[in-house]
């Protein structure tokens, strides 16, 4: 079946640097994408989402870019802080129908921010 995947399983950055986490998706029918941050022992925390009619969306210190041509999603974190250290997951909705509520998650990228 189709799945969402991540290019890099780990990313280490220095405090203050910008971070970019990448995600490739294969289901061309997906029209909703979302990024989550998960800290140890906690549930995933919503960061930002984007619909397929957009190619960029900005939040506080975060930007999500969507390239539908190459089926690529990225999360940019500006001025990364030690508190940003966590596992980051991208997810897609698979395009709808009776599975509209179902999100398919990637395996995650571990972000480590060094002070």
């Amino acid at each position, binding site marked *: 079946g189709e799945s969402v995947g991540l290019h890099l399983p780990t990313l280490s950055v220095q405090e203050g640097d910008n971070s970019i986490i990448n995600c490739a998706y294969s289901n061309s029918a997906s029209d909703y994408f979302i990024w989550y941050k998960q800290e140890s022992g906690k*549930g995933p925390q919503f960061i930002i989402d984007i619909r397929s009619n957009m190619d960029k969306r900005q939040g506080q210190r975060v930007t999500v870019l969507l390239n539908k041509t190459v089926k690529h999603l990225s999360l940019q974190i500006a001025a990364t802080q030690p508190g940003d250290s966590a596992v980051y997951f991208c997810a897609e909705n698979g395009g709808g129908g009776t599975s509209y509520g179902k999100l398919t998650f990637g395996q995650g990228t571990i972000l480590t921010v060094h002070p």
Partner: protein
Amino acid sequence: GAGVSQSPSNKVTEKGKDVELRCDPISGHTALYWYRQRLGQGLEFLIYFQGNSAPDKSGLPSDRFSAERTGESVSTLTIQRTQQEDSAVYLCASSLLFGSGNQPQHFGDGTRLSIL
């Protein structure tokens, strides 16, 4: 509370026993979802509810797994005759009604299930 609440936070049980996991969604959220997360892995969809009905049960691993929701609020996930491979964190999420499109799913902290 303001967020999704799950109980118990941890559950240890013997192989073959039944377990029941509970989820209290965010007030006003009509959609509710269950996922499973094995150690070091991404989330695996199990089932979702729109109100009290479940349009998609495709992720339930076997007929030992079942879920129900009543009053468009609390949901329970039941695993019968537990097996060791059922050990995982079970996460619940809720969201507003889809409307014109997906809405962000907000997660609880999960129930960590360990089968001895």
